């Protein structure tokens, strides 16, 4: 998993697969203050990757605040499955998959959950046919890590 640090260290773009090969030690040494991790480029997570991430979150210094932006579906699934996955990090935005029931076109919509509460979804129309779209997840389970 690669990382790119921007905005004087306040924004980190994470890209690639979260697996046994993911080494967060170099990134960990550079974290300070409030940092936003942009996870839009994160793909595929296996069980060894889960442990690498959990250890990374555990080792983030107590005086560093971590915001998570653009959490992909696979990442959200792990938040709901693994009790220690988030550590002290806070999810600010996440992707919600949606599907057009008419033409089966699928897209992902970024949703703000910085309040920590389950969002009221206002999904955009299908970009292909204009029909209303539906969340392509079981909302009770997908947003289970949020309150309300």
């Amino acid at each position, binding site marked *: 998993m690669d990382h790119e640090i921007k905005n004087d260290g306040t924004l980190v773009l994470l890209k690639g697969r979260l697996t*046994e090969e993911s080494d967060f030690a170099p990134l960990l040494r550079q974290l300070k203050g409030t940092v936003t991790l942009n996870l839009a480029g994160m793909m595929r997570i296996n069980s060894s990757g889960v442990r690498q991430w959990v250890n990374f979150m555990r080792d983030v210094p107590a005086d560093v605040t971590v915001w998570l932006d653009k959490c992909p579906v696979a990442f959200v699934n792990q938040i709901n499955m693994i009790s220690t996955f988030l550590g002290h990090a806070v999810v600010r935005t996440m992707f919600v998959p949606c599907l057009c029931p008419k033409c089966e076109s699928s897209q992902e919509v970024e949703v703000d959950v910085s309040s920590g509460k389950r969002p009221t979804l206002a999904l955009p129309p299908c970009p292909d046919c204009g029909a209303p779209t539906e969340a392509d997840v079981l909302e009770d389970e997908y947003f289970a890590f949020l309150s309300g």
Partner: protein
Amino acid sequence: MLRSAGHDVVEMARAQDAPAWLRMNRANLAIIDLEDPTGGTGPQLVTRELRRPGPANTMPVLALVRARGEQRVRQIFEGERLANFLAVNEDDQVDPVELAVTVAKIVSGDIFGIERYLAPGARQTQMNITDSRQKADAVESVHTFAVESGCHARVAESVAMAADELVTNAIYNAPVDAQGKPRFTHLARTVPVILSAGEVVSLRMGHDGRKVAISVVDPFGSLSPTKVQDYLAKCFAKGEDQVDSKDGGAGLGLFQIFNMTQHFIINIAPHRMTEAIGLLDVTRSYKQFTSKARSFNVFVTQGG
């Protein structure tokens, strides 16, 4: 359906009548609907009876599970300690193929292979693995196979990640020495492992237009049903020990496979072979894939 397959079936309309019958009779298999529609405790009485010392104690149990959700699954692994359950779908039906195959496997002891879960003429492919560094190619092959089989993009990702866990288990956890001691379990998953020519791990994929099946076979047979249940119970309990901190793997592989497939099956011939199978319906929607309640089986045979 079971009668037409040649089985002699005794039905109990009320679960609470079953314990008395079980004390007086023998059967090859008990099928229990775990959710009593009247809210009664009949199913629990039956499972309790089957655990008591006596003639019914060794009888295999196949549970039918309606409720979905983590808490229910946790209860099944932790409390009821069931190794065989099939999901009852929203239309109140059990997948007829999976029911017929599951019953036949329990009764006959002939347990290996993905073919029995797929329709005749299913497209199948196989690759052999002897080096952990082949895993990435294997996972990509499974992903491509799932996409070509018509799986939703996110479902294809799930299939690929299930394959990742299955192959990792077969290469790092399954191999044991002559004394049954694990050879590579303690290794970090970044340390390459090369198996000998006689220790080939086989990855198989199948698709019949309705279902996708993936399986990984190892020639060790070192996995035990108790270990499977313990790991799944630990992971569903979501305690501080959910992620292992010991050397080696994270202890999450079986849990991930259970969540990434709709039917997870483990076939074990002790000391000879283990086959882990993941089955998924080909769906056009990710929600359809995630909404289906999960099925799970562990079969053990002394035969081939």
